[in-house]
């Protein structure tokens, strides 16, 4: 247990400091949105963004959340970039994370191609719509809706109780037509686990909403994909997490193209974010066994809530 003290204390202070900054320094961040940061050299922002995303990557893995959902509200609070570019970068951060994680999950049979393709088709269409709407909305409306969404995500994360192995007695007709079922080797149980799903039409409807929100705010949608797969459709938790990553790669690709065409992607912002976040998630995965993940998860939720509140205040012009 002593091994856990140092990293846990460090992470605790880092997160507490971020929450405190988000809540009590709103004016500094809003000032950055309205005027150019001529006084600071561009490369200082680049390095700061890389380092910031590196720590965000560590925290995201330990807290069990996707980096994308933390990236947009927090980076738009601390950095001088317009939220259009932050959302564009957020989509690419989530996309590159999903692309690099996807292959081993598919090979192991944890991510299910047929389940993902069925849901991603409809969700990717709505994510294009969400991106179009999001980029057309006035900035204060974006901040208000982002704030409300992030606060909602914090509540979902706090309250949702996942089910590792949901028991589905009878699959629904649509899932039978689409041949959505599977079997995977569960390392914890050390045996094969077969699964099937129900409530497919409800799941499809929910994925329309998820895709729209992901496109609108440039958020990775793991926070919503996983509960819908697991709690609504009845997919085992491991398969839900893995398949969510696959769905995310399709949805974010669709939305990213809208951001690219609308000129809302700047490599100068996106690339340090991607590199920092990817490096951070690798380190975070190594630290996973050395810290109290439950404590960190609660702090990450507090951090998200503070970022949501901060975005709401910005939306109200406070």
């Amino acid at each position, binding site marked *: 247990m002593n091994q856990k003290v140092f990293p846990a204390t460090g992470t605790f202070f880092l997160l507490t400091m971020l929450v405190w900054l988000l809540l009590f320094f709103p004016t500094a961040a809003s000032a950055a*949105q309205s005027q*150019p*940061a001529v006084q600071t*050299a*561009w*490369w200082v*922002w*680049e390095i700061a963004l890389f380092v910031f995303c590196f720590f965000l990557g560590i925290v995201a893995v330990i807290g069990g959340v996707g980096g994308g959902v933390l990236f947009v509200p927090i980076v738009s609070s601390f950095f*001088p*970039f*317009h939220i*259009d*570019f932050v959302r*564009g970068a957020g989509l*690419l951060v989530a*996309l*590159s994370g999903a*692309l*690099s994680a*996807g*292959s*081993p999950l*598919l*090979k*192991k*049979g*944890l*991510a299910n*191609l047929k389940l993902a*393709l069925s849901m991603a*088709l409809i969700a*990717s269409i709505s994510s*294009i719509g969400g991106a*179009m709407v999001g*980029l057309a909305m006035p*900035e204060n409306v974006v901040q208000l809706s982002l704030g409300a969404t992030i606060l909602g995500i914090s509540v979902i994360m706090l309250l949702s109780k996942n089910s590792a192995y949901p028991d589905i007695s009878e699959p629904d007709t649509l899932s039978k*037509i*689409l041949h959505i079922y599977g079997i995977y*080797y569960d390392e914890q149980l050390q045996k094969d686990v077969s699964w099937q799903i129900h409530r497919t039409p409800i799941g499809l409807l929910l994925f329309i909403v998820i895709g729209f929100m992901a496109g609108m705010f440039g958020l990775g949608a793991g926070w919503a994909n996983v509960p819908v797969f697991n709690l609504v459709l009845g997919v085992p938790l491991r398969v839900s997490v893995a398949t969510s990553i696959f769905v995310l*790669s*399709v949805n974010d*690709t*669709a939305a*990213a*193209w*809208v951001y*690219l*065409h*609308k*000129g*809302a*992607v*700047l*490599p*100068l*912002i*996106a*690339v*340090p974010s991607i590199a920092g976040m*990817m490096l951070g998630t690798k380190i975070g995965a190594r630290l996973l066994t050395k810290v109290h993940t439950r404590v960190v998860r609660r702090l990450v939720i507090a951090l998200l809530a503070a970022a949501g509140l901060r975005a709401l205040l910005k939306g109200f012009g406070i």
Partner: protein
Amino acid sequence: MKEQLHASRVQLTYATVLSWTSTLGIIFVVAGYLVYVFQLLPAAVTPAEIAMQWHLRASEFHKAVPVPSGWDWVSQLGRGDVLSYASVVYLSSVTMICLAVIIPLFIKEKDRIYTIITILQVLVLVFAATGIISGGH
């Protein structure tokens, strides 16, 4: 390798293509960025000029700074800023490549439902990539 028994042939092919294309994508993105920021190739807009305006909305930003967007960079690949942008475009195309590769496999397996779903999915992504709906270049 007991786990691999549960992944279908189509899924394994997708995973293999994804592994190669995404690794290449990350390498491209980082290399393109380094070429740009260290100005190893000439660029129409320097990072400092971008930083002066990155607080603006995307639409206003593009009126002030001639950086690439959509497909308008294709004829200018020798520029550092364009190379960096092109690498991001490639990363955004990885999923399309992987999906396109598995269509013939679904056809071969006579899986009509997933042949149609995958073709539709590729069409949706191609539609987004053309910029028709988003007023792209």
